[in-house]
């Protein structure tokens, strides 16, 4: 291990800042986010209110802290659902394909294609509109669309491993396909899954913000970055900071996660590093 990739360092620092702020917001925020202070509304950013105050006089900085916490919580659970269902499905599909069970593999993959065919944001909006707006339904709506992503990726990676010699050896030892999947395949594709999870996590944050923006995600009085932007929209002409900071927070958070994901991939994939060096020499 030579040195850490720069993207990894920058990405992890940004991600850490947000996770720290989110955890901290459980115990402490500069101001109470439910406290209305009409006399102090529309204050420009200052030392007292770093990011200014909104039309109810609430402190934007505190709201972003709590909003980031909600965004992280929703995304974490949504991606968790996607992985918890998608990964076993992918492993199962790969195992059955390798053990003359094409029908199951075919069915699982067609089911995947089906979910992929639905425009995800539109469906998320529909699900939350139908079952009622709120964080839980937002989690389900985002989670569902994470399932095929993980299933497809797991299946692809697992299929590549099934023809390896050590898998053959395990089969010769009499291990069943389920045991092989969990003991030998899963640990070997964990790297890929972690990288994919960070990418999906950042997508989920944008999705949560979009849902909240149209009023279907986290509900008031719980602050959410998306809804802050929605409220800011009518006031940007005289209070543009209301739009700058929550949006900037989303971008920084997503950017941090993406950079961290790229960094982890570079770190975990020695082949990629080697290839890069070779082609650098060639270039």
């Amino acid at each position, binding site marked *: 291990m030579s040195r850490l990739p720069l993207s990894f360092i920058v990405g992890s620092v940004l991600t850490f800042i947000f996770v720290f702020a989110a955890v901290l917001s459980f115990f402490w925020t500069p101001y109470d986010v439910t406290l209305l202070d009409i006399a102090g509304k529309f204050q420009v950013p200052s030392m007292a209110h770093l990011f200014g105050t909104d039309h109810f006089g609430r402190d934007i900085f505190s709201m972003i802290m709590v909003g980031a916490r909600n965004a992280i919580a929703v995304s974490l659970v949504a991606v968790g659902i996607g992985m918890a269902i998608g990964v076993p499905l992918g492993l199962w599909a790969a195992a059955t394909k390798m053990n003359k069970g094409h029908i199951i593999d075919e069915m699982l993959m067609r089911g995947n294609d089906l979910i992929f065919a639905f425009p995800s944001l*539109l469906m998320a909006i529909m699900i939350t509109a139908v079952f009622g707006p709120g964080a839980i339904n937002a989690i389900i709506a985002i989670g569902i669309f994470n399932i095929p992503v993980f299933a497809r990726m797991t299946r692809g990676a697992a299929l590549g491993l099934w023809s390896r010699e050590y898998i053959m050896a395990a089969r010769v030892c009499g291990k069943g396909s389920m045991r092989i999947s969990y003991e030998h395949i899963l640990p070997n594709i964990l790297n890929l899954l972690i990288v994919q999870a960070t990418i999906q996590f950042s997508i989920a944050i944008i999705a949560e913000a979009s849902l909240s923006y149209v009023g279907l995600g986290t509900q008031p009085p719980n602050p959410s970055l998306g809804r802050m932007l929605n409220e800011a*929209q009518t006031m*940007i002409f005289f209070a543009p900071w209301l739009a700058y900071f929550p949006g900037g927070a989303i971008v920084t958070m997503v950017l941090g996660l993406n950079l961290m994901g790229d960094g982890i991939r570079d770190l975990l994939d020695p082949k990629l590093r080697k290839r890069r060096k070779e082609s650098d020499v060639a270039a």
Partner: protein
Amino acid sequence: MLSYFLKRVLSLIITLFTATIVIFLMIEVVPGDPAAFMMGLSGSTEAADALRAELGLNMSAWDRYFNWLTGMMSGDFGLSYTYRVPVSELIIDRTLVSVPLTVYALILSTIIAIPVGVISASRRGTAVDTSLMGVAQVGVAIPNFWFAILLVLLFSTTLRWFSAGGFPGWEAGFIECVKALTLPAISLALPQAAILSRVMRSSVLEVMNEDYIRTARAKGLSKRQALMRHGLRNAMIPVLTILGLQFSFLLAGGIIIESIFSLPGLGRLVFQSIAQRDLIVVKSIVTMLVFAVVMITFMVDMAYAVVDPRLREGDKS
């Protein structure tokens, strides 16, 4: 080739068919009675019953599904509950805004992404590459609705170059309409362009390592000539796949952007229809979008199969 084609057509039909069932079931479970919703609070029970009969809501679920399906096949999508006009008319009207917007956004993102990808690939590792890809990273991270707000703030409020929203209709003239679609198209295009330029970059890098590029270089072409004459076309293949996917994504993804700019497009229609429980419109539009996604994926696959015989073998890998 023929058997591959038939197999794909069969799976296409199954996917579409299953999709209509899923959509229908999903709409079935929507709480709220459209007839009661339309009658408002003052409506009598008899009037609501009559309306229900008129809309066909008193039939069994199976009959309604069957009618809906056969109706769609003959181009009859039914009557909108709230607008009281044929859904097909509504959809065509809105498509005339959404499709141009999508195409506009795709053109913009391609115009930006391809040169950016090629330049950063050919200057790999330099400051140019690092900064372009840095910008692309930020671009991927920007939610398009926030970008839209910023664009309005800059171009409508401060500079006053564009209006903050609305659509004059195609009767008002091409230029006016393009102007009205410009800010929405930019806000849709930027994140897509960022993704596309990253794909383009890695695709060009991959191609530059191919043997035929080495051959081209060996016969005396400069790196640039080799890339332009032999590399670019091959590097475009993955980019085209992404473009195909982006088309359908943008068509549906306009939902929020269309609302921000008050554009009378499909996305805004479906959003309003969900809120107004105009379920027949929701059903039809979602079906149409799914149809678009499936068809585009199918066509991309077919185009691949024609170009690359290895793919016809199916996914044996």
